[in-house]
């Protein structure tokens, strides 16, 4: 059988993404909610801090995190979390949805590799996640009254864009778990909170015990979050300079997708040899 051309592959990726974008435009309420959830999420520790810390809230926060701008710090955390969380939700649910609707088996019989269909879902997820994170950040800044245009906006965006690839590489690992265990709901929920904890959504990972800190540093979203915060609020990069932190993310960019694909492939072969991918 002849391999599909790059043009066909590109067309498959776009068609898969377009289908999902079309579906979400039918639920405009969900898009509005995507923007508001990170704001509400960040508002909770902000309000708790203001109520408990009083006038010294900013001072205390600076002592613990390196910036007195706690509103910006927490809002950046929840906005980046939206991107990370969407990546896991969309990829895992795509797989589970194909399983439940009985089309996953059919997808394996199609003349194109399913990785390109998954890439279309990832493209959709990137677009939706980025839209939600940016609108949440700017709207949140307007509501919670802080200047969103401070710091290096371009550098912050670069950290996000570079972080996308290792992030989606990691979702393949997660997809492998869904393929094997099948209980997507519970696992995605757990992963969502696990991810936010490890990436330091509302706190710096320096407060973690050494072992947990190492685990957090092996996790690309941690570098993404800190990179964005450092670029915008100047809290300090992990390795002192922005290009060193970015270099680590580039390293992840090479390793994470390959490793994720290898694990996914391995699990997939195993599942196909046993019960088959149509089981759910």
């Amino acid at each position, binding site marked *: 059988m002849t391999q599909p051309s790059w043009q066909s592959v590109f067309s498959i990726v776009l068609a898969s993404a377009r289908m999902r974008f079309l579906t979400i435009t039918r*639920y405009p*309420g*969900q898009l509005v*909610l995507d923007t*508001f*959830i990170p704001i*509400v999420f960040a*508002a*909770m*520790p902000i*309000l*708790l*801090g*203001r*109520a*408990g*810390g*009083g*006038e*010294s*809230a900013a*001072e*205390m*926060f600076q*002592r*613990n*995190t390196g910036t007195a701008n*706690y509103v910006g710090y*927490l809002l950046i955390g929840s906005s980046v979390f939206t991107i990370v969380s969407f990546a896991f939700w969309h990829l895992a649910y795509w797989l589970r949805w194909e399983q439940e609707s009985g089309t996953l088996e059919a997808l394996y019989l199609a003349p194109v590799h399913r990785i390109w269909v998954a890439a279309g879902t990832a493209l959709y997820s990137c677009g939706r996640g980025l839209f939600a994170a940016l609108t949440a950040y700017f709207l949140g800044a307007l509501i919670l009254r802080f200047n969103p245009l401070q710091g290096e906006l371009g550098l912050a965006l670069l950290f996000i864009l570079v972080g996308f690839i290792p992030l989606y590489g990691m979702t393949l690992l997660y997809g492998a778990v869904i393929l094997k*265990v099948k*209980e997507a*709901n*519970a*696992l995605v*929920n*757990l992963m969502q*909170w*696990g991810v*936010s*904890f490890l990436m330091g*959504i*509302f*706190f710096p990972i320096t*407060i973690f015990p050494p072992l947990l800190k190492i685990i957090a540093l092996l996790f690309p979203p941690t570098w993404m979050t800190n990179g964005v915060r450092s670029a915008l609020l100047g809290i300090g990069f992990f390795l002192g300079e922005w290009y060193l932190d970015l270099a680590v993310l580039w390293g992840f960019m090479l390793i994470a997708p390959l490793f994720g694909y290898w694990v996914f492939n391995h699990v997939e072969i195993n599942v196909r040899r046993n019960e088959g991918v149509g089981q759910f």
Partner: protein
Amino acid sequence: MLDNSKRAKVQEGLSIHWHTFWAMARKELTILSRYPIEFIASFGQVFLIVAIFTLAGLMFSDFRDPTASSAAPAQFSYSGVTVYGFILFMFLSDTLWSIGYNIRHEQIQGTLEQLYLSPANKFLNLIARVISILLWTGLASFVAALLMSSMIGHLPIKNPLLGLYILLVSLSGTFGIGFAFAALTIRIKEAAQTAANFLQFIFLILCANFFPFSALPPFLRFFSRLLPTAYCVDAFRSAMMGFPPGFPELAPFEIEFIIVTLFGIFMPIIGYRLYRASERYARQAGTLSGY
């Protein structure tokens, strides 16, 4: 006075309802027990939520130096405010999803129409879900309370009986919200997922589950005062914390007590009526199994 035959009929009716309810509750519990990963994951999730918000709260304190006193010490117990608020939030959130949105699962699986063709009382299907929420969420709340109090400090338990009463009537009212949401789910179908998410976050802010009401801007506090669930949160944690200065925050406790009691009595009735109306509409319009 009922004669013997009428009494026997009533008894038989009650017995049938009880057996139906128990069969439905057992079905929910069996499903629950068949997904151990979900069970374990939900506890892991509770632990992580607790850890995230606790650590976020600690960023506003001198936690690295236990001997230092904060320049502006809080006038309330952090653990009391967040733990008791979190317990009520967990019940509200689980109610919205398990009672309200689960109707959607029955629709998608194609079992809702069949359920309506059976001679069983349909409303018992909704109530049966309460049992699994009480068990599952109750256990998760207990674990969360233990975890949170171990992380942020001693949890005040000042008026346990009064607190228990407020918790029970609050849960009753919350289940009423669940029934009303189930009615909405039948009408709006897939959009119910968005609505559940939206409501969950609206309640989270307006009911101030993780912070005192005083932290809310005045215009939002106005909307909080329109929600009975906000009074539930305020009355429950104020009672459990032993009414520290400034608590309750929304209204005098006597008034909150009346509101919470009325909410616990009337909301399930209102929710039930809304559910029946929505169900009747769907049956007449032939949209019960449509999704």
